[in-house]
């Protein structure tokens, strides 16, 4: 053995001693579960029967999930949540960041005001918004009342059922009913998020704007000012400057935010549990994680089945990440 390998071997022992405390915890509660979970998803284990009685059932859990109407609905609920909340949050926070970046006074004050919702806890703010969306005593309906009767002069005020409304917003706008016999329950997608889900989307946009705004702001401040000066000499207007300088140079930040917010929106759970404890009137606000929680725990205890659903969720998140990297990764411009 050469002395270099000998030294490396010696150093390895020290290194592993330093890694051990974190390693033991991570091994037991992070790495091992990934494998246990995969094994579980092919068995019929429940929390009500002993582990020894579990049998191998192949892909039965996965097939059952994909054919389950509730799973399909929770899938579309999640898709609806992601598709409507992510672009809304990104565009509003980019707009806020650009306004803050335009030689404005009191940046610290505005930043704090916009950022405050993000640091507060999901449970508490969900409770507050549940009150705001209350049909009889909430601020939302009071505001709509002023707009509809006082300003527009309508006879009957707009009075929405918010968190208790399970019709999709497109169904409400076009006053129709989306077909519910489409493959994989995709009618729920055509119907759009239910008004209850829209209420939750408003809450989550409100909460996340500040976080995204701060990251956008840091990105904007990173752009070299000389690009703008050059554009101004060429007579570019505000839109052209945004289109040809800000947007492309900000694209790494936008891409990063798009990825993390899409992944985050597929894992959403807390606001739904607090604001609609049963997943909505017609299971219209239950995302996939809610479905996992309900089938795996909450009196059902079908651990294996829930593990299979969790793996389906992982597959979706990984697919999303890969697609994003393939499609958008190429268009990102680095300064």
């Amino acid at each position, binding site marked *: 053995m050469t002395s270099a390998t000998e030294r490396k071997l010696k150093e390895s022992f020290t290194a592993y001693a330093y890694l051990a405390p974190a390693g033991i915890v991570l091994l037991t509660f992070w790495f091992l579960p990934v494998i246990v979970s995969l094994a579980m998803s092919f068995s019929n284990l429940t929390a009500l029967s002993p582990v020894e009685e579990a049998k191998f059932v192949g892909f039965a859990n996965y097939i059952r999930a994909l054919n389950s109407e509730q799973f399909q609905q929770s899938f579309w609920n999640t898709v609806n949540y992601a598709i409507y909340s992510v672009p809304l949050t990104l565009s509003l926070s980019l707009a806020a960041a650009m306004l803050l970046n335009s030689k404005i006074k009191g940046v610290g004050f505005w930043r704090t005001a916009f950022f405050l919702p993000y640091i507060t806890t999901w449970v508490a703010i969900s409770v507050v918004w549940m009150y705001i969306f209350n049909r009889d005593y909430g601020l939302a309906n009071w505001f709509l009342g002023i707009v509809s009767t006082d300003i527009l002069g309508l006879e009957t005020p707009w009075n929405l059922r918010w968190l208790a409304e399970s019709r999709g917003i497109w169904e409400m706008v076009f006053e129709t009913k989306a077909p519910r016999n489409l493959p994989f329950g995709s009618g729920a997608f055509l119907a759009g998020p239910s008004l209850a889900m829209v209420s939750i989307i408003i809450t989550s946009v409100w909460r996340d704007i500040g976080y995204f705004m701060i990251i956008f702001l840091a990105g904007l401040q990173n752009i070299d000012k000389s690009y703008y000066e050059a554009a101004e000499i060429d007579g570019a207007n505000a839109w052209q400057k945004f289109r040809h300088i800000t947007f492309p140079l900000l694209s790494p930040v936008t891409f990063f935010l798009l990825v993390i917010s899409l992944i985050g929106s597929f894992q959403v759970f*807390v606001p739904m549990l607090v604001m609609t404890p049963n997943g909505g009137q017609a299971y219209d606000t239950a995302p996939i994680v809610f479905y996992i929680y309900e089938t795996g725990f909450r009196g059902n205890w079908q651990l294996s089945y829930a593990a299979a659903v969790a793996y389906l969720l992982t597959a979706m998140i990984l697919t999303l990440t890969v697609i994003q990297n393939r499609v958008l990764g190429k268009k990102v411009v680095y300064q």
Partner: protein
Amino acid sequence: MTSFLFTLAATEPAGPNLVIRIAAILFVAANLAAFGFVISSGAADSDQNARGIWRKRLKHALIYEVLGLGAIFMVTPFYWMVSTSFKDRETAVSTVPEFMPKRATYTAPSASGSGEVEVRVIGTIRNEGDPRTVIPTSEIKFEADSSKGFTIHKETWDKAKEYKVEPNKLKRGEKINLSLQNFRQAWYSPEEGTRGRANFTRYFAVSIGTSVLATMGTLFTGALAAFAFARFEFFGKNALFYVILATMMVPGQVLLIPNFLILDQLGWLDTFYALTVPWLASVFTIFLMRQFFMTVPNDLWEAARIDGASHFRYLWQIIVPLCKPVFITAGIFNFLNNWNSLLWPLIVTSRPEMRTLMVGLQTFTEDAGTDFHLLMAASTMAILPIVILFFLMQRFFIEGIARSGLK
């Protein structure tokens, strides 16, 4: 201002309110005009001529206006929460929102018939015309009761001092209330009736204890592991690092179910071990610290070694003080993560004694129904520690987040 608008709305229930309507039309028109003026490109405009200066001023005014409206949208829910936590039930569920933290007060002829006193209406009302049972507010006391193992403050009064008043003799008023009554009541949730009991002292203790312990643990194990990655050359280093990075991609929900089983096998379900031990290490923290430790120049180690320092002493006496910001940032995020987590404690614990603040608040939401004044008081209490932490450490919060987007 708002209460002025409400009075107008209340006196004129039918038909549109002209004041609000005209104000809204003027607001929209002024904004459209200003916006049009700002975006209309004038080739002759410059910083020198009047038109150019006005355009610039108006543009700034519009930016402030949009930011101001945005800030109102962001802050109103907080204001509403705090304001409601001082109201009584009646004010909290009035159909026209009351923006001030007010309480309804009632005055009635005193029991002896001489003069008027402030009273509290108690008991339920069956018919509109029935006499109301009242008790003078001066007779109501808060009494400590420790019969349940912890202290409850509840309202008590002498039953004999109650008396009945004809409804038309009862006068309603309102006053601004800044007493902490609701907080006290929410802290040990409604005593009477069928509602569940909340014990926020316990919830806070559990949350603070587990969050602090888990955060300290994560920082400690994270520093050791990150040091190993940054300082040593060892067999399997790259492979291990990629495994750690890959784990960051796995959504936490996948780990819930097997961890439930593992904790069950260990006999740790429903114990403090379940709430803390799995959170004593975090891949994200290790990754973050490693990035930071790598920037410390190697010369420092050479110097320390000449002075006879061990690796361990070098880590704690040189690296850690140098990398304080990363410890604060990682500490804040780990603490928030633990403090805010709901799904994990919901699954691994079930006894009421093991409830964290978030679980306690969530169950309280289901129990309290439409007692929004108590719900808002409880929410305010749950948010307050985090808001204080934020204002104390604002710089680290913002820098930590801003940095995450610029990798």
